[in-house]
């Protein structure tokens, strides 16, 4: 039987662009170029490697996001994923992590899955909690923050490098997995891949397809509220000296003045 892999990918504003907030204090997604979150490329890569090593596997990439989020799906398809699902609905604007996990979980169930692979965190929200939330909702094991992953005989195993220890984990499928940027370089789409991606199927679902009410998501459904967002004042220009042989000593003088030594 075919191994069904669903990879969750997010479309995010480019971190090297000038990111800011819109008037309703949601992340402004209009004025900054977006792209497939770099940390989700690692999830796509691991999914493709697992599929390549399996007898029979299918990789579906799934995103919840605005129309432009199709770009993220396209990129994942050109890397080698087989098909894509785009959940898009005007009522989704302003959805928080809890709401996003609801939409993802319903979509994953509808798509059918043996393993879900996510990134370690989105590069805009950087919460790193959606995979745990999706696992909780689906009621399957969470095997998260893996820097090494293998799937064999209906089991997922992997290494989680934590603060205090490095842990070897094991769970049976179905499961929700997330991988870190230590899991291995993501491949670049080849020209052939880019051409092939144009013909791969992209399904579009809205909230009614998933039996989700508008009140459950969006700004209205959010469990948290941003009350203020202020640009951090630019750091006041510091003292920059050129080392003419005494740079280390000058620096020591500065640190002494600041009472660090």
């Amino acid at each position, binding site marked *: 039987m075919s191994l069904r892999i669903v990879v969750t990918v997010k479309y995010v504003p480019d971190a*090297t662009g000038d990111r800011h907030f819109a008037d309703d204090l949601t992340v402004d997604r209009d004025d900054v170029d977006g792209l497939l979150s770099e940390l989700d490329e690692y999830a796509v890569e691991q999914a493709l490697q697992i599929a390549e090593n399996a007898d029979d596997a299918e990789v579906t990439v799934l995103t919840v996001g605005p129309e432009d989020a199709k770009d993220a799906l396209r990129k994942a398809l050109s890397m080698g994923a087989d098909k894509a699902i785009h959940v898009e609905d005007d009522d989704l604007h302003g959805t928080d992590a*809890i709401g996003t996990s609801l939409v993802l979980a319903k979509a994953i169930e509808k798509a059918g899955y043996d393993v879900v692979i996510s990134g370690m965190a989105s590069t805009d929200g950087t919460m790193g909690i959606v995979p745990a*939330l999706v696992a909780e909702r689906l009621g399957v094991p969470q095997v998260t923050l893996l820097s090494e992953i293998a799937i064999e005989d209906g089991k997922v195993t992997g290494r989680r490098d934590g603060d205090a220890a490095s842990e070897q984990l094991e769970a049976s499928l179905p499961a929700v997995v997330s991988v870190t940027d230590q899991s291995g370089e993501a491949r670049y789409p080849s020209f052939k891949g880019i051409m092939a991606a144009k013909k791969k199927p992209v399904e579009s679902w809205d909230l009614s397809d998933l039996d989700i009410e508008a009140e459950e998501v969006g700004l209205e459904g959010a*469990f*948290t509220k941003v009350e*203020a967002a202020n640009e951090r004042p630019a750091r006041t220009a510091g003292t920059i000296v050129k080392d003419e042989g005494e740079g280390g*000593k000058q620096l020591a003088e500065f640190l002494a003045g600041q009472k660090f030594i």
Partner: protein
Amino acid sequence: MAEVLVYVDHVDGAVRKPTLEVLTLARRIGEPVAVALGAGAAATAATLAEHGAVKVLTNEAAELADYLVVPKVDALQAAYDTVSAGGSLAAVLLPTSADSKEIAARLALRIGSGIITDAIDVEAGADGPVATQSVFAASFTTRSVVSKGTPVITVKPNSAPVEAAPAAGAVEELPVTFSALATGTRIVSRTPRQSTGRPELTEAAIVVSGGRGVNGAENFGIIEALADELGAAVGASRAAVDAGWYPHTNQVGQTGKSVSPQLYIANGISGAIQHRAGMQTSKTIVAVNKDPEAPIFELADYGVVGDLFQVVPQLTEEIKTRKG
């Protein structure tokens, strides 16, 4: 007075500093009730009492150590049920870590609450606690509230001072019934990280970091020598980590540790946005880089344009001399 649940991060009974900082913040909102789980939990009580815990709920079941995340969610939920049944629970606070964010998220979902992660400050507000966060690689500061349920908030290390505030800290065994999913993900083996004898990266008052400019694992010795002279932790950029010069556990930045020390010294680091994301909230920033155009200088309170192989050893020597 309202109560606040505080999740305790400890290693075999030794409470890690960020938990004590969270106790400081918790006391602004209510009376801290600590929840300590796993082997050594009961041993945390004295330290927690000293820093304001009125009660310490403990459970040392084997499941907590043998399976990932979910048993801790079950236990924290049991604590939530107990305390919220008894009156007014104002919030659940946790020191931010990879584990605690996932625990917090699943708890929030179960109890129908909102979650805020990586707060750098928490204050009492008219409609419950107000959390300050630093977002978009620290270029913005936001203030947020949880609008549904009992707020669940994780707090970054170095967000508050550690304060003595003696309280009863009475130890109570917390009964926990583990859910069917608790044993879903087995921790087959655990290799504890070797201690370097240096301060914990996220907790350190001073961090000395090296980047691609350090140019080799063997040269990290000069970064370590400076760090040791200052009693600092050692950090590294991803470029240095990817090159295999320093362990990933020391990486500072978006996909490494986020640090907020009193002093951050960046050596041979250009200051890419992903690196800045992990260090931009440091109080004082110092940079040594031979390229005067390096973006790190935009953040620096003091910068030396020069060769780190000259500047850093001279600085280390000078500190030694001054200390006499």
